[in-house]
């Protein structure tokens, strides 16, 4: 299963953190730091795979990829295939790109609720449920539409405005 998804910038600041098994806040920070340390030590032009058993216990693997200023990191165990996870990451980024048109770090920061929505459509409870980015985009758009609709009802009620 997938143990966690982390998006952080090249300074090590987390932009999106999602662990599929509960981790207390301090532990999360520690994990993020040790992951960042590993990522920094990786040269360019090397593989995207790292064995993460020293951080996450036996058999844990980590796949990372940089997109512009962001590191995307997936942590998972033997039941996933490294190369496929790399492509899953690609699916996520493609979806983000479709949703934000030319996604950048700030989109992730300001819309991290939406990024969570997207991620929830792709991975649920540590398992991959959807791998087609068009399907994900469709679902996410439907959600936003309905959210907005309900939102406009709020706005129309006096006293409920922002």
């Amino acid at each position, binding site marked *: 299963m997938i143990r966690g998804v982390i998006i952080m910038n090249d300074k090590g*600041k*987390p932009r*999106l*953190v999602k662990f*599929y098994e*509960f981790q*207390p*806040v*301090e532990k*999360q920070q520690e994990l993020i730091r040790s992951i960042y340390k590993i990522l920094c*030590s*990786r*040269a360019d*032009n*090397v*593989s*995207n*795979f*790292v*064995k993460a058993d*020293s951080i996450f216990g036996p058999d844990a693997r980590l796949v990372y990829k940089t997109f512009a200023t962001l590191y995307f990191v997936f942590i998972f165990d033997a*039941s996933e*295939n*490294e*190369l*496929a996870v*790399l*492509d*899953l990451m*690609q*699916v996520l980024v493609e979806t983000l790109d479709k949703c934000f048109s030319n996604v*950048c770090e*700030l989109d992730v*920061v*300001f*819309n*991290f*609720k939406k990024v*969570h*929505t997207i991620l*929830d459509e792709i991975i*649920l*409870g540590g*398992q*991959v*449920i*959807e*791998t*087609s980015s068009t399907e994900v985009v469709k679902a996410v758009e439907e*959600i936003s539409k*309905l*959210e907005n609709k*309900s*939102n406009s*009802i*709020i706005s129309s009620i006096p*006293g*409920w*405005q*922002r």
Partner: protein
Amino acid sequence: MEQLKTIGRELAMGSQGGIGQSKEFLDLIKSIGEARSKAEEERIVKREIETLKGRLSSPNSTKYKLKEYLIRLLYVEMLGHDASFGYIHAVKMTHDENLLLKRTGYLAVTLFLNDDHDLIILIVNTIQKDLKSDNFLVVCAALNAVCKLINEETIPAVLTQVVELLDHHKEAVRKKAVMALHRFYQKSPGSVSHLISNFRKKLCDNDPGVMGASLCPLFELITNDVDMYKDLVASFVNILKQVAERKLPKSYDYHQMPAPFIQIKLLKILAVLGNNDKKTSEQMYTIVGDIMKKCDTASNIGNAILYECICCISSLYPSPKLLEAAADAVSKFLRCDSHNLKYLGIDALSQLIKIGPEIAEQHQLAVIDCLEDPDDSLKRKTFELLYKMTKSSNVEVIVDRMIDYMISINDNHYKTEIASRCVELAEQFASSNQWFILTMNKVFEHAGDLVNVKVAHNLMKLIAEGFGEDDDAAELRSFAVESYLRIMGEPKLPSVFLQVICWVLGEYGTADGKHSASYITGKLSDMAEAHSADDTVRAYAVSALMKIYAFEIAAGRPVEVLPECQSLIGEMLASHSTDLQQRAYELQAVLSINAHTVKEILPMDSTHNEIEIDGNLSFLDGYVKKSLEKGAQPYIPASERSGAFNISSFKPHEDHESTSHGLRFEAYELPKLPQPATIPQVLPASMDLIPVPESSYVSDISLPSAPVPYSSDAGPAELKLRLDGVQKKWGRPTFSSPSPSTVNSEVKVQAEAPQLSSVSDSNSKSRSTMSYDSRKTQVEISPEKQKLAASLFGGVSSKSEGRHPSGQRPSKSQYQLSDKHRVAKAAAPDSAPVKPSKPPPDLLDLGEPSVASVTPSFDPFKQLEGLLDLSHEAPPVNGSTATQAPDFMSLFSDMSLSAPPTDSTSDPFSNMGVENGKTASQMESPVSSKGLNLKEALQKDALVRQMGVTPSGQNPNLFMDLLG
């Protein structure tokens, strides 16, 4: 420029406002981004937390504002600050009717809360309600929360609803319901065991997304219990076929590959289902072959599928055709420039060699390249591969490379792992004593404080046992002594290593007569001096001194205590550590007693002595009877007694040890106290019992009693300790068998353990961190393990490898042996029939220079060059040697072993894979091997090797010793 862009973007965002992004949030992020120090960031976040605290609890905040605050709170927590004060607001928000707010609430609680948080109880009700909602998005949000927040106790509250949702009209809901049910299964398999059939049903869902989702739980279920799902093989194959033939909607295509993720999952499932099952595997051959052909190797995802196919093939019952295709694919991976593909290629190769070890040969050069690669991940993967293919012919090269790498890295976790692997391989396959000792020295020097102490004890044991023949043992010991004398002066040696050195010097320092006692004792006291902070090392040093003096006394030579030793002893007599004190006093006591007694209490080389133990404690019968007649309490078995026993009549210092050791020794303590006068006669037995961390018992007996003359006839027969029916001291609560002979043999293993055991050592054991587990576990080797060892190493009786009788192999290697290592390791004993005592003069071994093994090179390149030269030299040497014939034999047996062990239930002639013998005995006689084509192949291969050419014909015979 980049900055300008960013600012422009921010402005755009700011003006846009987005949904829920207020100016304040923007400012917060901006100021955090601009913070120059961690402290400044901390201050900003603290201020934000204060603001949020006030606003969240303020009644004036609108719901919409609340939502924004909650998102800011999430952000703050992501940065590592405690946001628990706002959890309740997140919970409240889940109750809201508005979809946006509800979803935000659910998102917040799934990120904030653990599944056993107190607030969960407030959410369960909402979840129940939302699961029934007409709005499928509400249902989805609730299902998301279910996956994260429901635990074993709350599963029943939502289970029925989740199951109903499996048939929801929206596929998004069905998909998530499948996952929720899967999650329940993971958290508490028992609570959903009756619902598992639903996963099978969902496999036939109309929507490919739901079908794909159902593969996740099915994969897990199948991994847990393969046999239950064999009936699904046809369905899986069918689905895979449809996917490969592009029957799924176009939207599932990814980079021109049809639903690649579903294909990968299916291949994983097939690999599990077809493992070791010929009939099932045969159903899959066609489709797996087809998929391999269809893979687009230009794209990432195509290669991912290809890799999964290779993994699948190496797990299925071997099919020569597929194996060949897999080998081709591996070589494509390895030839790629992409590190990712090389990485997967190495990984795939290490899986493939399980069933076709010869495949590795074709890739010698590529593997060496990966070893030299700057990419650390790739290097580690390659070391894993090498570890799996180690055998006696290549162990030196591989382990030396591993050590070089180990020295070069800083990552302690990995250093530990690789160090223990080096030790494991060296113990298993080492061919020369010198090499073995030097290798262990290097491992200890560089990773001594990282490796398990068991490893050190194992080393002592191995040196004591001497691996078989006496000459060999003596040579090993004197070599160890020499190398330790050389190395012991170096600074910063790990404590564990120093302990080993002390022990070996004490035990064997003067054994070969090369060094005088005063030289060794001088060295030892120097060492104790240099490590005055390390009490354990000092304790070992003192005990070593005592042993050397004792041996001198016993040999009738005058003992001359060097002034520095004298002062050391004096210092220790006044030590704060009672353990050191006791050792020092004991040493003094030994110095003052006569030669005959010393010989009895500290016999030379006593680690080999057999002990006879009277498990029934029959020598106490008279005493017990007498006591009972006097009205004493009868013996209470260990299991029925608690602390009461200890109170009885023991000396005060008994107390500390009874708490410090984990095992129960009461059964042994019982006889000792009442009869101090007769106990001296038990000495030989008690000596050897000492390895068990049972301190004062032994020292009590032996020391005070030492002066009492030992009467040899009184001994074994009546004074034996009987262990029948008594809980064994070392190990799990099993009971020793009543037959005296088996007791003896078990104890013998124990007795061979280092004589660290010598009387005075015992006391420290409970205190020091050292454990004797290694020896303990050894005694407990279960029949299954022995069977495994037999099948792996050619049986207990065969003296394979010249080193370890398999039955006594270090336990570590036994539990680490899993299927995947089987092949590599099974290759070890193959040469046994040829020359049992010495490692076989393998063709390739001949080529290895003894120089390299004495001073293992640190420079990988140099070593490689050496290899190059050697392999060129090798062929002529082989051709002209008299040992040629045995070499051939060993090669044959080597080859026959190289095929994977399978349960060859079927016709042995059908293919090579089938041939693999099940037992070592079969393998030992290659002439009798059944498969015709195998035999032919072997002959051909041997011939080719003799010519000095690799069978593949592609590569020069460069790294034969590494990969042959």
